[in-house]
C-alpha cells in the first residue's frame, strides 16, 4: 500500500517543486527584462509612404502604424503603398499578407494636385484640407499647389466647391526621364 503511495507523493512533490523553481526564474526574468514602448510602431511608420491620405480610414500614417502595432487593423489598407508596403508590414508585424484591393495606383507615376487658376475663387477650404500644407494662398487670394511638397493624397479635390483641382502626373523631362527596363524576349511566350 505504501509503495504506490510514496511514488505518487514523490511525483506530485517533484512537479510542484519544479513548477515553483521555474515560476521564480520566469518571474525574475520578467522583472529584469522589462521592455517598455512598442518599437514596432515607429518601424512601420518608417516604411509607410507618409502621404497622410487617410485612405486607410485613419487620420494619418502614424495612427495607422500604431493601430497595426497593436494589431487592431488589417495589413492591406495602405492604398498608395500598394503590395510592397503591405508585404513589408506583414513581415514586421508577422501577420498574414492579404491582397490589396485597389492596386492600379501602383503602376501610374505619382500624381500631384493642380489648381486651375482661372476657376479658383480663393475659398481656403482646400488649404484646410491639405494634410501637409502644400497649398499656398489666403482667403479671396489666388491658391496654388507647391508641386514638390504635394504627396498626391487627393484630399483637396473633393473639398473644392468649384472643382478646380485635378490630379496630374509631372511632365516627362530630361531630369525625371528613366531608362525603361529591357524585356527579355525569350522569357515571354513561344515565338
Amino acid at each position, binding site marked *: 500500500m505504501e509503495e504506490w503511495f510514496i511514488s505518487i507523493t514523490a511525483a506530485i512533490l517533484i512537479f510542484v517543486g519544479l513548477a515553483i523553481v521555474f515560476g521564480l526564474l520566469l518571474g525574475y526574468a520578467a522583472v529584469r527584462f522589462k521592455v517598455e514602448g512598442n518599437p514596432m510602431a515607429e518601424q512601420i511608420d518608417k516604411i509607410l509612404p507618409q502621404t497622410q491620405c487617410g485612405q486607410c480610414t485613419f487620420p494619418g500614417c502614424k495612427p495607422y502604424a500604431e493601430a497595426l502595432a497593436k494589431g487592431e487593423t488589417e495589413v492591406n489598407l495602405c492604398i498608395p503603398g500598394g503590395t510592397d508596403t503591405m508585404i513589408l508590414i506583414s513581415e514586421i508585424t508577422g501577420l498574414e499578407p492579404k491582397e490589396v484591393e485597389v492596386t492600379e495606383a501602383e503602376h501610374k507615376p505619382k500624381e500631384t494636385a493642380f489648381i486651375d487658376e482661372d476657376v479658383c475663387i480663393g475659398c481656403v477650404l482646400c488649404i484646410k484640407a491639405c494634410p501637409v500644407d502644400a497649398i499656398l494662398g489666403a482667403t479671396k487670394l489666388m491658391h496654388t499647389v507647391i508641386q514638390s511638397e504635394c504627396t498626391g493624397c487627393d484630399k483637396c479635390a473633393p473639398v473644392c466647391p468649384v472643382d478646380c483641382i485635378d490630379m496630374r502626373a509631372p511632365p516627362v523631362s530630361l531630369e525625371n526621364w528613366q*531608362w525603361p527596363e529591357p524585356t527579355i524576349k525569350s522569357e515571354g*511566350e513561344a*515565338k
Partner: protein
Amino acid sequence: MSSLTPQSSPLSSPFAHNNQSVRRLMVRVQLAVIPALLVHIYLFGFGIVIQWLLAFATLMVVEFTMLKLRNRPIRPFITDMSAMITATVLVFCIPAGAPWWIIVSGTAFALIFGKHIYGGLGYNPFNPAMLGYAFLLLSFPVQMTQWTAPTEILDYAVSFNNSLHLIFTGSLPQAALEANLTANLDMVSAATPLSQLQTGLTQGQGVTESLTPIALEAQTHYQNGSFINGFFYNTAQFFSLNSWAWVNVAFLIGGLWLLAVRAIRWQYPVGFLGSLTLISFIFYSIDPNTYPPVDFMLLSGGTMLAAFFIITDPITSSTTPKGRFIFACGIGVLVYVIRTWGIFPDGITFAVLLMNIAVPLIDQYTQPRVYGHK
C-alpha cells in the same frame, strides 16, 4: 522615324558583340569529352555508346515536353546543348552494362528535378548530372555497382550487339557465355579499384593487399597460351596504370584543352585537385597502410571527370573568383572524407551537391575589391 515621342524601349548600346553564345561554349565542353569516350570504348567496349544514345533520346523527349509545358521557344533551348552535357556526364558515371532503364530514369530525373523545376537553364541550384547520379545511387544500389570489367581481364572486347543484348536483357547472349567459360569468368562485372579498396579496408586488409586481387584476376587471365602474372597494379601494355586510370588521363587531356580555350576557369581544377592531393598526401604520410597513395586518389573513380566537367558547370557553382576556389577546395575535402570514412566508394556526387547548397552563401561573402574601394 521622325516621331518626337520618347521611344518605348530604346535599343541602347552596346551594338557590338564578340558573338560568343551558350551553344558554342557547351559544344567546346562536349568536344573535350571525346578523347575520354574513345579510351572508354577501347577499354570497356561499346556499352557506353548505347547508354549515351539512350540518354540522348531521353533528353530530347524530356526537353521537348518541358519546353512545351513552359511554352518557351523550342529551337534555341533544345540546341543550347546544356542538357547534352548533363547526359554525357551522367553516362560516364554509371556502369556501361547497366540496364537501359537506369540511364533513362537517371537522365529524366536529372533534367526534370535538376533543371526545369527551377525554371530551366540558368536557374537550378543543384548540378543536374550529380542529382541524377545521386538519385540512381540511392535508388538502385545493386545495378549501380555492377561495373563491367576491363577488356584485358575479360580477354575479349564486349562487342556492340553483345553489350546491346546485355543492356536490354541483363545477360550476355548464349554464344558469348560459352566462349567466356574457358576463362572461368561467369560474370562480366568486376569491382572498380575504389570499391575494391573500400571492401578490402573494411575487412581489415591493408591498402596493398586489398588492391592486389585485381592483379590476381589479371593473372588468371589467359591470353594466347601463357599466363601473364600481374603485380601491384593491373598490367596493361603501356605504363603501370589500370584502365580506369587511363580514362581519367583522357579526361585530364580534354580538361587542359578546355582551360586553353577558356571554356572553364582555372580555379576549379586547381582548387579541387590541389586540395585532394594535399589532404591525401597528409593522411598517406601519417599511415600508408590504411590510407591510399596520392596518385591512386587522383586517377581513380571520377576524379578527373569531376575536376574538369562536373564542378566547372558555371550555373550551379560559385561565380566569384575567390568563391570558385573555395567551392572547389570544399569539394576536394568532402570527396576525400566520403571516400575514406563514408559508405559510398566515390563520394563526388554528394560532395558536389553539398557544396552546391553552400554556393549562395559563398557568393555573398567573396565579392572582389571594386576599383576605387578599399
